[in-house]
């Protein structure tokens, strides 16, 4: 009997294709669609390079690469020094305002890099209030004094560092809080001062988390278009725009995008590698309350100053500038067309959020119900977009959609003598598709963490208490997931609202959003008029920062009892 049953089962040995059920088919399809832009862009590396490329290669590419590298090195130094210092101080030291700073230090995350660039340019430019004040006070002419130029690569590094350091801050802080106090105490008993303990124990333990934060910041740096364009720095993103719009050469733009992808993948590898290492760096599961080093006297003043500067420069000053601009220009700027703008932005962001979260739910449940390699891989592929710059995605979406439109148009003309024109490209559909590719990962992450809270045994418990599978969904999952879904919607919503380059490339003719309007006003040297739309974006952007800060203040394990 025993033999018989083993024989029966062993007859199935051999390679088996995944079953073609609804989950498999839909999830693999989604993954392929999400991977499409990247595949399209990468495929252009196999295409012949034309004379535009030769020109690019001879004169511009060197600049793109050096500038991108300088930016990355500079931003690394900036975000690491600000992020690690503030994370260590707020997690390990006690000083007046520590609790306030631990969430307020996240606020710069609400300001897109291009917007902070506009505000500082407005303040520090030759015609700005500061230089004007200096000239009037000392009676100097334009050439009588030296003032640092904001619109420079150094300025861009400053701007990007000021709004991107929270990535490092967040990851490093979580890592510091996650560390066992016993490990630090052990280092003290072995003769290390607190500072030596930091360098020799805490920092190496937190390194994987810090590298993850850094790679996120650098991905944003590579993706940035608004800041570098405004400051006149040639990088890959500005190069792609120039080739696409200025030269009108899609193929070369795509080839440039493919090169940029190479940089991104290097960062992705770095991030994956550091995440993997993070598992080995978890020092304990036993937590005791942190005994923070008490800061007193001038040390306390110094610490408060160190925490206040990033907040002041990265949030308070630019936000105040936006307020001032908004109030001084309100009468002309805030009219009917402004509300159309707001409506467009909200509608676009809401639609994209709905689409991304629905897909994330489908993927999340697929992964939960069918624990197969195919589905896991598909979900990983589908969540790759967060690393891909909006410019690259835009190129990768526009190229196949334009081809599709042309093909349909040609076919229809040949057979029915009807010209269909543009059906996909240059429509909201294409733009929403690009947003989904870019921001799906954000919603997947949120949904996954929510689903993780519903243990599989809860499903079983529901079934054993008389619920059908649908009943489990309705009475257990829906009430628990409600908050998660709202969070996921909100995160995508805000990201879409802030997004600039993809919107700029793909928006339908005459369709404007807040981000695009801010960009256009700044490009026209009408900075104050950029204030109102920029302020709207920042204000909405604060909401997810509050959510995040709530999450990190509850994040220390073993503390909630």
């Amino acid at each position, binding site marked *: 009997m025993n033999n018989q049953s083993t024989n029966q089962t062993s007859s*199935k040995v051999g390679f088996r294709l995944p079953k073609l059920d609804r989950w498999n088919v839909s999830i693999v399809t989604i993954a392929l669609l999400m991977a499409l832009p990247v595949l399209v862009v990468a495929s252009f590396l196999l295409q012949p390079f034309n004379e535009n490329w030769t020109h690019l290669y001879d004169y511009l590419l060197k600049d793109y690469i050096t500038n991108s590298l300088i930016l990355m090195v500079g931003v690394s130094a900036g975000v690491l020094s600000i992020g690690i210092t503030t994370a260590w101080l707020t997690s390990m030291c006690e000083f007046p305002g520590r609790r306030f700073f631990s969430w307020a230090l996240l606020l710069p995350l609400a300001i897109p890099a291009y917007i902070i660039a506009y505000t500082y340019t407005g303040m520090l430019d030759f015609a700005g209030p500061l230089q004007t004040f200096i000239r009037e006070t000392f009676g100097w002419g334009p050439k009588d004094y030296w003032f640092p130029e904001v619109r420079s690569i150094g300025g861009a590094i400053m701007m990007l560092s000021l709004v991107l350091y929270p990535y490092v801050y967040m990851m490093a802080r979580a890592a510091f809080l996650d560390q066992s106090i016993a490990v630090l105490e052990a280092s003290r008993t072995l003769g290390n001062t607190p500072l030596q303990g930091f360098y020799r124990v805490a920092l190496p333990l937190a390194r994987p988390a810090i590298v993850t934060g850094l790679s996120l910041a650098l991905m944003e740096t590579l993706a940035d278009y608004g800041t570098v364009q405004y400051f006149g720095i040639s990088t890959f993103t500005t190069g792609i725009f120039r080739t696409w719009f200025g030269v009108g050469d899609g193929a070369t733009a795509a080839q440039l995008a493919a090169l940029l992808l190479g940089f991104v993948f290097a960062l992705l590898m770095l991030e994956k590698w550091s995440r993997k290492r993070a598992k080995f760096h978890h020092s304990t599961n036993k937590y005791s309350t942190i005994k923070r080093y008490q800061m007193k006297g001038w040390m306390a003043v110094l610490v408060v100053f160190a925490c206040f500067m990033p907040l002041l420069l990265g949030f308070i000053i630019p936000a105040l500038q936006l307020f001032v601009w908004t109030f001084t220009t309100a009468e002309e700027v805030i009219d009917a067309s402004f509300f159309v703008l707001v409506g467009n932005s909200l509608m676009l962001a809401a639609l994209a959020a709905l689409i991304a979260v629905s897909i994330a739910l489908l993927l999340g449940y697929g992964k939960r119900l069918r624990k197969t390699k195919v589905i896991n891989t598909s979900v990983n592929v589908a969540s790759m977009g967060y690393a891909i710059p909006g410019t690259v995605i835009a190129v990768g979406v526009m190229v196949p959609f334009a081809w599709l439109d042309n093909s349909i148009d040609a076919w229809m003309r040949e057979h029915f003598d009807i010209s269909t024109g543009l059906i996909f490209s240059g429509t909201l559909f294409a733009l929403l598709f690009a947003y989904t590719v870019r921001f799906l990962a954000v919603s997947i992450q949120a949904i996954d963490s929510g689903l993780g809270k519903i243990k599989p*045994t*809860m499903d*079983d418990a529901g079934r*054993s208490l008389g619920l059908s599978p649908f009943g489990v969904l309705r009475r257990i999952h829906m009430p628990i997931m409600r908050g998660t879904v709202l969070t996921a919607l909100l995160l995508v919503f805000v990201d879409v609202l802030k997004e600039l380059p993809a919107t700029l490339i793909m928006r339908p003719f005459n369709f404007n959003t807040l981000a695009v309007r801010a960009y256009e006003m700044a490009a026209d040297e009408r900075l104050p008029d950029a204030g109102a739309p920029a302020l709207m974006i920042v204000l909405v952007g604060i909401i997810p920062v509050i959510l995040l800060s709530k999450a990190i203040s509850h994040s220390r394990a073993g503390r909630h009892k």
Partner: protein
Amino acid sequence: MKILHVDNVSIAYDQNEVVTQASFELDKGEIGCLLGPSGCGKTTLLRAIAGFEPITHGSIKLVDTTVSNVGFTMPPEKRNIGMVFQDFALFPHLTIAENIGFGIRHLSKKDKSERIKQLLELINLQDYGARYPHELSGGQQQRIALARGLAPKPDLLLLDEPFSSMDAELREELAREVRSILKHENITAVLVTHDQNEAFAMADSIGVINQGKLLQWGSGYELYHEPESIFVADFIGSGVFIDGEVMDDNVIKTSLAPLEGIVPKMCKPGCKVKVLVRPDDIIHDDCSPRKAKIVSRVFRGANNLFTLEMEDGTQLLSLVHSHHNHEVGEELGITMEFEHLVVFPDKDA
């Protein structure tokens, strides 16, 4: 009345058979236990009884209905079973009262709140109805999970390692408490555990499972004193095997002494065998001429567990009353009392 019939049940995932032809039955009100090391298939068998896993051979009958068969699995919600999970699986969005009432929503409001009140009293948490699960301690959550499983008055209650997340000191106490609650409600139950003390404290009858096979089904006494296989003898309690040779129908020659007792039929005179020596078979007696050297000593409060070495190098275990204080290295006088001789043919010889 028989409540549960598990008849020749096999369960396989893809090519791997996880449970092989397990059979047992439970009477109304009887508490059974599946005991075995981790990964032995005991939880899989429990989940098959619950209806979460299909079976590939045999059948499962609950009261008078066949609930699982080859090619047929009645869904769990139709089986009228209750289940208590290892991680309790309390619903975090519901209060304690709502959790307990989750499976009895078809009752009228009055009956429902009455049943909830009754169960809260039973588990001695009367004042906790309005709280949420995360506000309670592990032991309290565990009792809530039990009450939730009991609320619909299931025909059968399944408990999957229900004490494994508890502190070791709490486990036995909780196991006794849960037993008295189940007995009070006259509920038939199956418990899954890897901890034999838990099994002894909870269950009326115990099945030892290893590598998917149900090796022996019986009371704790039977498993300890009359193990039918080397695995069971080794897994339950402690002890050592010593070599022996069958002399005639009921005498075995060993390095300790000739031992008398019932010898399995398949062991003919001249056969090499293994004899199980439990720590309680070796009795300390200062007057005995037979001496053994103390190799190590573990203090256990009421008694000491000694590891002894005989002259020929054979090692034995002995439980000795705590008042007798002997140091490692000393000679200890011993006698042997084999009330149950446990003998297996020596496969290696």
